[in-house]
């Protein structure tokens, strides 16, 4: 069953789909509708394009297109990398590389600072400054999935104990401390699902930010692909995560990678190091030069950090939200 989708526009209250309506029908607060059937058909044309010889469950794979946008991705793949691990090291040079390697060896916190945030994919990852419904301030992470669509955690766009829907979110792609190489845009149009906003289910903790029409960051910096994989494919998959943790210098981007340790119907668990502020970060697979998000990071816990899995309903909603921000 597809998730029931609800949509919010700042200043217009909450438009929630009545549960008695068709649970599968996405809606928008302006009355427009997305034809899910058409979207799924279009998406199906991508099935099998991964071309991964080791991918036995290819028929169960649906992928969105991840595009570096400016055609400069080849330079980042000069280094041979392990299957799944991102080619992060190829983006680092000189002092930045030394800094990164030092981070790797100094202890259990082996997250790596990304200093080359104007390179893809790092520039498609966004620092979020969130103003909640009660005017409290928060930080999070999001990632571009299309020209004007940023995917993030549900609790970044709808904070249950702080007024519900966010009032506004400042989106800063490729932020590097005080540097904002692509400036920023303030968004007031958000998406999530009833499973999060009404029922507060951890399994439904995901959402989206639709950027203003004059803010087409995806055209400029590129965006991630996304995929709905089978359980067997996800088990033990090496995945990457990069975002903006609050325990590091303000506004700096940090990367880590590990294998998935547990696969649930709607949740992926891993030992990737994260901290508050990385909610909404992409959890992605790097394969054949492409990045496919498989999860949306949401939760921290000493027994394992976790993401909302891009299960089929999540995949379908991302597809619809991407279309709304095209």
């Amino acid at each position: 069953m597809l998730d029931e989708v609800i949509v919010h526009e700042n200043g217009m209250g909450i438009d929630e789909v009545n549960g008695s309506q068709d649970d599968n029908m996405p809606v928008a607060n302006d009355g427009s509708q997305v034809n899910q059937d058409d979207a799924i058909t279009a998406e199906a044309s991508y099935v099998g394009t991964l071309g991964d010889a080791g991918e036995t469950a290819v028929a169960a794979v649906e992928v969105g297109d991840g595009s570096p946008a400016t055609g400069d991705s080849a330079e980042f793949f000069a280094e041979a990398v392990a299957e799944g691990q991102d080619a992060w090291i190829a983006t680092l040079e000189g002092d930045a590389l030394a800094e990164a390697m030092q981070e790797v060896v100094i202890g259990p916190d082996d997250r790596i600072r990304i200093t080359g945030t104007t390179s893809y994919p790092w520039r498609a990852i966004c620092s979020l400054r969130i103003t909640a419904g009660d005017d409290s301030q928060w930080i999070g992470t999001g990632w571009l999935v299309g020209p004007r669509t940023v995917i993030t955690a549900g609790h970044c766009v709808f904070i249950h104990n702080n007024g519900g829907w966010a009032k506004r979110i400042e989106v800063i792609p490729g932020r590097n401390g005080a540097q904002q190489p692509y400036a920023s845009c303030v968004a007031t149009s958000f998406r999530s699902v009833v499973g999060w906003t009404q029922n507060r289910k951890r399994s439904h903790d995901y959402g989206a930010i639709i950027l203003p029409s004059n803010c087409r960051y995806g055209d400029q910096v590129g965006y991630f692909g996304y995929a709905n994989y089978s359980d067997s494919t996800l088990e033990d998959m090496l995945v990457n995560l990069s975002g903006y943790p609050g325990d590091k210098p303000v506004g700096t981007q940090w990367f880590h990678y590990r294998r998935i340790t547990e696969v649930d119907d709607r949740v992926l668990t891993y030992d990737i190091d994260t901290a508050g502020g990385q909610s909404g970060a992409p959890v992605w697979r790097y394969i054949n030069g492409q990045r496919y998000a498989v999860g949306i990071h949401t939760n921290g816990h000493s027994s394992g950090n976790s993401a909302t899995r891009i299960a089929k309903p999540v995949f379908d909603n991302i597809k619809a939200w991407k279309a709304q921000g095209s």
Partner: protein
Amino acid sequence: MSEIIGRVLTSAGAPINGAIVLFVGDSPAHDDIAAVTNDAGEFRFAGLAPGHYELLVNSEWHGLRRVVVTVGRDESIPLVVQFD
């Protein structure tokens, strides 16, 4: 559910605006979002399950502070974090 209502202050007792506050360590499972203090140096985490929470306060100008807070059932816990 419980809440932690905190203030972040300088050594002189002035409120610190813009400090980042987050859960770390062996804290119970939590959303990986971080609060930012307001002009009065205030922050609030609500909807907390009982447990021992380790908070990290990250101030760009004052450094890092760690505080452990024990949260019971249905209580509101005031907290002051003051930098040296």
